[in-house]
């Protein structure tokens, strides 16, 4: 290093050096200027390169101290708060293997291209890669990396792995994938609701109403439609006397069904039969809110019991080619399987006999039952050919003991089982009387001694067909008149019947006088 001295100050050879001369020499020395102007610029600074630096504690007699670049860098970034810092490629430790920038630096504004600090706190800035640490920035922009804890309120994160808690209140997380417990998934930044099992579509319309099931989270878990029935809005149950209330034949008394015999009607509109051994059936008190139910009592050697009803074509023709729902309440103290079978008549209202049926099976199935009266239901696809009347039969196997109870039988249009339809008793009785009616036939008066005499007995309800008329003498109350010809019933005492009533006559005796009859009749136009 050249030092320029003031060459204008000269001293004579072997002359005297005066103080004034030395002052002139020193004062005229251009040391500072020389240091600056003659320096060569460094194109790079190595970590081991040294600088001279003056400590604030140095005195005038102290020499400047040397410091390496690394030492200077380390000492410059100590624990502190830096504002508006622009730090590129901080990779402490790589140059010397031991250097640390800071483990608790706080940067409020700036750009950090690569931050690997585990505890750095960044409040505002853009961090392309954050591999560890906590950012509390209100507007941080993290493009990739691993964030252990994110508490920024408006952070935008476009990629990366988040191993800790994310507490951002209004940030944007792009391309975010995580595994969540529950019904929601996030993959590639797209959130997807779990399916609820319902087929997407529109349910309900001008001819059907939707039936939906909603879970506790408000999701629709099942959806179906039920046809809006017309013409039977108030009489949706096609079964008559499905709750067993009307029992014109037995009035609640027990009835014995003979094994192997033809089907026998019991409570109105329902018939029973059995095989193997006789069984008894009876209308019994129902389980609340049902007033009545029907119950078979099993017996040893019984191999099967059937209980069914036949529905007139004119009341079921509209069900052809559609779905109907059968529901019934059942219990059995012995058996666990009740079979249901649906038929349609081969010709209108002609189902044949038990031994020689004239019907076509539509469908059959089973209900698994127990000793508690429970409602069961099934859908039945009624074929378009079933315009001739329907028949529903319930059967059980070897009811060798215990009881089988049936109640609230309902067949309705549509694919949903609705609550059992309870109709007024008078209405239900009238519906039953279309098929069966009992009453008193009475004639009492002065009769001449020739010809015949008689009366017209009008039915309360017009019958489905001209009914079979049976008589019994049990209701005779006027002993002055005779029974209705039980001695020779086919001799002409019965004249004619049609759907509205029947004519009863007797031949007059040889002498005139007080004559007549009183008897109970039953008119049956069952299917």
């Amino acid at each position: 290093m050249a030092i320029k001295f003031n060459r204008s100050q000269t001293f004579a050879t072997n002359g005297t050096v005066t103080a004034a001369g030395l002052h002139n020499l020193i004062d005229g020395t251009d040391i500072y200027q020389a240091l600056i102007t003659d320096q060569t610029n460094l194109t790079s600074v190595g970590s081991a390169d040294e600088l001279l630096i003056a400590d604030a504690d140095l005195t005038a007699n102290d020499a400047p101290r040397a410091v390496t670049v690394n030492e200077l860098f380390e000492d410059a970034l100590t624990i502190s708060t830096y504002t508006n810092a622009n730090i590129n490629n901080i990779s402490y430790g790589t140059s010397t293997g031991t250097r640390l920038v800071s483990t608790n630096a706080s940067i409020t504004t700036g750009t950090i291209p690569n931050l690997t600090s585990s505890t750095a706190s960044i409040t505002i800035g853009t961090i392309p890669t954050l591999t560890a640490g906590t950012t509390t920035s209100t507007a941080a922009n993290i493009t990739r990396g691993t964030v252990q804890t994110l508490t920024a309120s408006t952070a935008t994160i476009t990629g990366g792995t988040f191993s800790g808690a994310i507490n951002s209140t209004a940030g944007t997380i792009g391309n975010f994938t995580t595994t969540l417990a529950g019904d929601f998934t996030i993959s590639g930044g797209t959130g997807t609701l779990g399916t609820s099992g319902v087929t997407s579509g529109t349910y309900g319309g001008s001819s059907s109403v939707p039936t939906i099931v909603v879970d506790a989270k408000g999701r629709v878990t099942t959806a179906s439609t039920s046809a809006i029935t017309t013409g039977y809005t108030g009489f949706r149950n096609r079964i008559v006397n499905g709750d067993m209330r009307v029992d014109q034949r037995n009035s609640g008394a027990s009835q014995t069904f003979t094994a192997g015999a033809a089907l026998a009607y019991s409570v109105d509109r329902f018939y029973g039969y059995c095989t193997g051994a006789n069984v008894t059936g009876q209308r019994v008190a129902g389980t609340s809110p049902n007033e009545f139910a029907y119950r078979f009592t099993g017996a040893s050697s019984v191999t099967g019991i059937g209980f069914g009803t036949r529905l007139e074509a004119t009341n079921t023709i509209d069900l052809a080619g559609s779905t109907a729902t059968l529901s019934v309440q059942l219990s059995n103290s012995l058996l666990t399987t009740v079979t249901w079978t649906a038929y349609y008549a081969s010709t209108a209202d002609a189902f044949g006999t038990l031994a020689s049926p004239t019907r076509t099976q539509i469908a059959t199935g089973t209900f698994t039952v127990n000793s508690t009266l429970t409602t069961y239901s099934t859908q039945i696809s009624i074929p378009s050919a079933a315009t001739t009347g329907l028949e529903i039969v319930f059967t059980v196997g070897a009811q060798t003991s215990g009881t089988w109870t049936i109640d609230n039988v309902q067949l309705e249009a549509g694919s949903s089982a609705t609550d059992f339809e309870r109709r007024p008793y008078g209405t239900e009785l009238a519906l039953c009387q279309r098929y069966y009616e009992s009453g008193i036939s009475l004639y009492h008066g002065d009769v001449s001694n020739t010809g015949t005499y008689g009366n017209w007995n009008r039915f309360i309800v017009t019958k489905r067909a001209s009914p079979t008329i049976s008589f019994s003498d049990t209701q005779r109350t006027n002993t002055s008149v005779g029974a209705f010809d039980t001695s020779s019933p086919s001799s002409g005492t019965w004249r004619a019947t049609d759907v509205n009533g029947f004519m009863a006559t007797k031949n007059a005796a040889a002498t005139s006088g007080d004559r007549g009859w009183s008897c109970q009749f039953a008119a049956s136009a069952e299917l």
Partner: protein
Amino acid sequence: MYKTTNTGNCVYWVDKNAFIPFDNNNTDYQAYLKWLADGNEPLPADEPSEG
């Protein structure tokens, strides 16, 4: 078992003490026709009684 009647518009059902009209929609009459088709014959009608 069945028995004819003098009126000619019904048949007497002996087992049920009932009169079955000749109506094709009456299921008892349908059963009677089946019974006849199987080769059976009804009993003759009773003699008229007076009273």
